[in-house]
């Protein structure tokens, strides 16, 4: 099978499995790409993940890099489209229904039920990120300062990020 078709099929499938966000399918992506299809080594995958993390944008960008590694820029674009479109079509339909039944009781109960789960999951995602990123006391202090700044000041987040980068460079 042509690599582009393989990429499209793989990420099209993963797209519909990525409930809760792309990060929840990262282990599955790694298994398929490294162990299943031998497209790259585990080390290369870790490197790709690091690149995707350091670039701006949604964290699904890692699939673009996987596609690019296998089949060049076209592979990256195909991987992105395959990862986005199936889930996107689903969410557009769901969001339409969600709006249409705005006043229905079941809709309000469902909304009241999923809101606190979402809140817990976002907090958990933050905690997991903190656990991974804060490997030293200084980095933990950077995270705490950034949290405070975003909650209590009107500073633009880019300044907060720039400050964190500078501290990282200085401490080295």
């Amino acid at each position, binding site marked *: 099978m042509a690599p582009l078709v393989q990429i499209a099929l793989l990420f099209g499938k993963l*797209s519909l499995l990525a409930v809760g966000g792309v*990060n929840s399918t990262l282990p599955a992506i790694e298994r398929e790409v490294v162990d299943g299809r031998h497209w790259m080594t585990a080390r290369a995958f870790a490197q790709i993940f690091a690149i995707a993390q350091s670039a701006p944008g949604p964290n699904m960008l890692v699939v673009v890099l996987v596609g*690019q590694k296998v089949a060049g820029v076209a592979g990256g674009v195909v991987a*992105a489209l395959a990862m986005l479109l199936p889930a*996107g079509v689903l969410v557009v339909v769901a*969001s339409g229904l969600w709006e249409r039944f705005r006043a229905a009781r079941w809709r*309000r109960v469902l909304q009241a039920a999923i809101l606190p789960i979402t809140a817990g999951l*976002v907090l958990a995602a933050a905690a997991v990120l903190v656990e991974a990123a804060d490997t030293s006391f200084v980095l933990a202090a*950077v995270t705490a300062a950034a*949290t405070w700044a975003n909650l209590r000041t009107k500073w633009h987040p880019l300044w907060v990020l720039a400050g964190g980068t500078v501290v990282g460079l200085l401490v080295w």
Partner: protein
Amino acid sequence: MADREKLTHGALFSGFFQAGIIGFGGVLPFARRLMVEKWGWLTAEEFNDLFSLCQFMPGANIVNMAFAFGARHQGVSGAAAAVTGLLAAPMAIVLVLGAMCGRFGGIPVVQHGLAGLAAAACGLVAATAVKIAWPVVRKKDVLFLQKKAPRPGNQKNSYLPRDLAPAGEAPPVNKSFLLLFFKKEVLASFSLRGMLVTCLAFGLVVIGHVSLPLTMLVLLPFSLVLAWRL
């Protein structure tokens, strides 16, 4: 949202473009800041509503949000405009970085800068998580929030923890909220159900290391029963 004026394709594209190109470490903090705090496209509750729908659907949360938000305003072409805007710059950047194939990633200076950047970025995510959780753990539940207060143009949202700042700095809009906070009623203003489910979801993932889809699957029936009965 139906009564709100529709955003044009250009506004959708450029709005999500701005969120995407500066979205280091995740777009969520930037998207929420722009859509809720800066432009007032959505209230804090509407943002939570849409975001939780997008989280429960498969796919990247913030990309799903661009799809759904764009589609609400301009249909399928609006969704395309929002998603293209969100991804154009990040995809170009990541493809260039990938082509250089981490040639600079191994240099210690770069690594230390990136470590600091990552630490600050997760601080932003943590703050955004607090902002999202704040209205959820308080008693103003969607079920009780049938009549929305008129929202003054671009005012700061009164649900943000930031408004707990000293009274002198706060706009008069938040007076009632501040009063509420400094009185004893504050304890009564928290929603037990919201806090319980939020803490359970947090605990299952962080302490129990349960996967996200499984956490949702396990908690949804429980949370539904609570929401139904209370």
